[in-house]
């Protein structure tokens, strides 16, 4: 039995409770009464995957259906992977401890590009053929993926039977229903895929063939098997009423986000031009304050967590933020629950609310100006003024904090050395502000942490056309920043440039990159997002062997009329809007947020009517 084999080795590895299930809130069903089994796979370790909200939602949602069973599966850490390979333990799901290769669906959530090799590794550990074309003709073992990265799924296209675009709450069940019906009729895999691609939101890559021009760009797309020429993402229209779990799986071992998480809004109205999430989740939809409070209470009671966090791209933009926080604070204070508000802007909070927030906030304040100069902030449409930055810092210092953390991006379109030096100057003005304040915290000096990410152009953003800085440019700017800051008071951290380059290539890549991903994995690449496992040299070898030039994807400007590898996928926002926004960026012209004025991105036209009342 597999379980015995697993248990035999559990005490030889780190944190064994990650590999044996049995957590409170995990759903165990009677196999004989289940018709469709879904292995929800997260291509990273338990500690990271268990923190992911989308998985919690879809897990509970699927399990509400009596005859469907959704189980969890994560990438094992290296110590356990070695044991699994040595002892022929196939990758298994945590609830039943059954091998996932026998499941009807093997579903991955693709949250970041650097997890692609982990998918291949997990399929291999499971004993599932890596390439979709090598899988059985029978209707079983359907390998699917969803999540933000599948808005350009082409670098993964050869490994998956189908992709689920957009929000999964409805379409996942529709897909499983179709499978259940067709399985009863004895249909084949191909027959199922032909039907599945007719469901809105389902993209079956094998029905779409790319032809390329001599210069490497896409010449045309050939669609077969009567698949729709464009595939549109799914949207939940009534977000307030959408299914939300009343329980989470509560892990024994500590995970990254070890708390209740309540989604307060989906989408974003700001339109920062670099931010993919800001466009692919449009339009902004909210839950009522009452619904949020209700769901918070329910989840805290059922899980026993004493920490809750509000999940959204920008919590401050909730239209009922003040009453919602007041009510939540009453409950959480009473119940000795810690409320964390990761994406809350404090500069427009009321005094009273601020007092309360200050009381419970343990860590220092963080803020994301993203760019140092007003010109560059206008280019990226980051609607933050210097005054707001200073005001936030003033509040923080006045509230007893002597450290602030600022997030910036480097390598943004139109950026010059002046903008980089500007980061150091902005930090200095904050330091100066600290020392001019009478009520600053005494005894300590001020500390500024600057975290500087490298800009990665992403599909479905106005910057999808933009080239990324070359490594030389990135390294020059990193050095320039380090040389410019006040070293005593400012701490700078930045990412490995190679990581950002690979991210850009995979984000904007086409189907020819599948071979590169496969080759890199064959060379031993996995856990690419974990510094110690990242081997850029192996990736470069893989590019070389496959005859692919990474700079074609990362450093080339894409013209407005090019056929994009993701051009047949429809995320509601129009191509014309992205072109218009790109032109505005180059003129440093800003676009107001959706509540101030609709800029006609296309979403409203398609959902029928207006995004806001």
């Amino acid at each position, binding site marked *: 039995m597999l379980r015995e084999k697993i248990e035999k080795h559990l005490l030889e590895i780190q944190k*064994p*409770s990650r590999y044996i299930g*049995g957590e*409170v809130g995990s759903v165990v069903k009677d196999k004989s009464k289940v018709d469709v089994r879904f292995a929800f796979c997260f291509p990273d370790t338990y500690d990271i995957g268990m923190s992911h909200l989308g998985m919690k939602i879809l897990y509970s949602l699927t399990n509400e259906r009596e005859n469907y069973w959704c189980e969890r599966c994560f990438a094992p850490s290296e110590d356990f992977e070695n044991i699994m390979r040595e002892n022929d333990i196939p990758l298994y799901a945590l609830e039943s401890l059954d091998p996932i290769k026998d499941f009807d669906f093997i579903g991955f959530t693709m949250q970041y590009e650097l997890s692609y090799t982990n998918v291949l590794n997990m399929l291999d550990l499971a004993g599932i053929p890596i390439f979709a074309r090598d899988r059985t003709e029978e209707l079983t073992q359907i390998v699917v993926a969803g999540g933000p990265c599948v808005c350009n799924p082409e670098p993964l296209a050869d490994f998956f039977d189908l992709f689920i675009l957009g929000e999964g709450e409805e379409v996942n069940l529709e897909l499983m229903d179709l499978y259940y019906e067709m399985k009863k009729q004895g249909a084949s895999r191909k027959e199922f895929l032909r039907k599945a691609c007719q469901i809105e939101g389902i993209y079956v890559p094998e029905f779409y063939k790319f032809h390329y021009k001599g210069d490497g760009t896409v010449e045309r797309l050939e669609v077969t098997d009567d698949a729709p020429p464009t595939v549109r993402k799914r949207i939940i229209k009534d977000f307030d009423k959408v299914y939300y779990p009343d329980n989470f799986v509560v892990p*024994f071992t*500590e995970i990254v986000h070890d708390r209740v998480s309540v989604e307060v809004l989906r989408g974003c109205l700001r339109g920062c031009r670099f931010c993919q999430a800001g466009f692919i989740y449009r339009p902004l939809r909210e839950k009522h304050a009452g619904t949020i409070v209700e769901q918070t209470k329910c989840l805290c009671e059922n*899980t*026993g967590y*004493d920490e809750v966090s509000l999940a959204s791209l920008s919590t401050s933009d909730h239209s009922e933020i003040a009453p919602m926080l007041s009510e939540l604070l009453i409950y959480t204070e009473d119940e*000795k629950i810690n409320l964390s508000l990761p994406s809350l802007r404090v500069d427009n909070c009321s005094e009273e609310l601020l007092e309360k927030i200050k009381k419970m906030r343990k860590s220092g304040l963080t803020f994301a100006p993203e760019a140092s100069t007003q010109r560059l902030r206008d280019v990226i449409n980051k609607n933050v003024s210097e005054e707001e930055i200073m005001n936030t810092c003033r509040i923080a210092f006045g509230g007893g904090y002597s450290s602030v953390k600022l997030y910036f991006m480097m390598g943004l379109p139109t950026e010059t050395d002046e903008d980089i030096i500007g980061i150091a100057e902005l930090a200095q003005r904050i330091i100066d502000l600290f020392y001019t304040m009478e009520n600053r915290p005494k005894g300590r000096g001020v500390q500024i942490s600057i975290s500087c990410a490298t800009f990665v152009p992403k599909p479905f953003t106005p910057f999808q056309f933009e080239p990324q800085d070359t490594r030389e440019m990135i390294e020059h700017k990193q050095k320039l920043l380090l040389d410019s800051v006040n070293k005593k008071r400012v701490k700078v951290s930045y990412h490995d440039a190679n990581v950002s380059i690979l991210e850009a290539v995979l984000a904007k890549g086409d189907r020819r990159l599948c071979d590169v991903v496969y080759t890199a994995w064959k060379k031993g690449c996995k856990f690419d997002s974990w510094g110690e496992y990242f081997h850029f040299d192996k990736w470069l070898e893989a590019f070389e062997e496959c005859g692919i030039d990474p700079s074609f994807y990362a450093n080339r400007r894409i013209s407005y009329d090019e056929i994009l590898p993701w051009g047949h996928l429809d995320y509601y926002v129009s191509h014309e809007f992205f072109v218009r926004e790109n032109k505005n960026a180059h003129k440093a012209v800003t676009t107001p947020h959706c509540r101030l004025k609709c800029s006609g991105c296309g979403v409203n036209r398609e959902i029928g009517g207006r995004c806001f009342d």
Partner: protein
Amino acid sequence: MIRLRAVFSKKDRAKYISHLDLNRCMLRTFRRSGLPIWYTEGFHSHPYFSFALALSLGYESDCEILDFNLNEDIPTNEVRDRLNAVMPYGMKIISVAEQKRKVTAITNAEYSFSLVSDNPDLLMNDIENLINQEQILIEKKTKKGVKTVDIKPDMKIISCKIAEKSVDMVMRLPAGTQTNYNPSLFFEALKNASDMSFETAKIRRTGIFCENNEIFS
């Protein structure tokens, strides 16, 4: 404030919950039960949970001790039932009662385990030879470093039987605030003394005792 003591079992998949994680796990269990947990006063207010003895990862137990405080006087059976309704799979509260003795009264603990072997008869021979030695010396890791201890005087064999594919033993070892010996010391000693290869299985703590073999409660 009401001081209470629970006896609980930890078996099956729950044996992989580490001692470090158990505290957090219990706090969440109590919160789910809705019982009125007592919190310490002060800025870093927290509930009070204390385990009498740590249990090694991978060991099962029928007799773990948890001391905790409640704000209200609730019938102990009700406390037990409310906790059991929300306990993790593999864990169960056996009883809840007042705290009779201090945890410092604990002197030893009893363990049962199987030593799995293809040839239990030969292994039994080696075990008998080992436990008939004058001394059983073994290196033990302590906070201050490694030291050699003689576990023979404090080790009490309750039973030792040959089964189909194993030798099954029950033994008592010192436990508590003074000396703590884990059956793994005995396994080590047997490994050193015997050429037979064996695997340990079904290790379970079966009792916690004070002086005069009185069950700790």
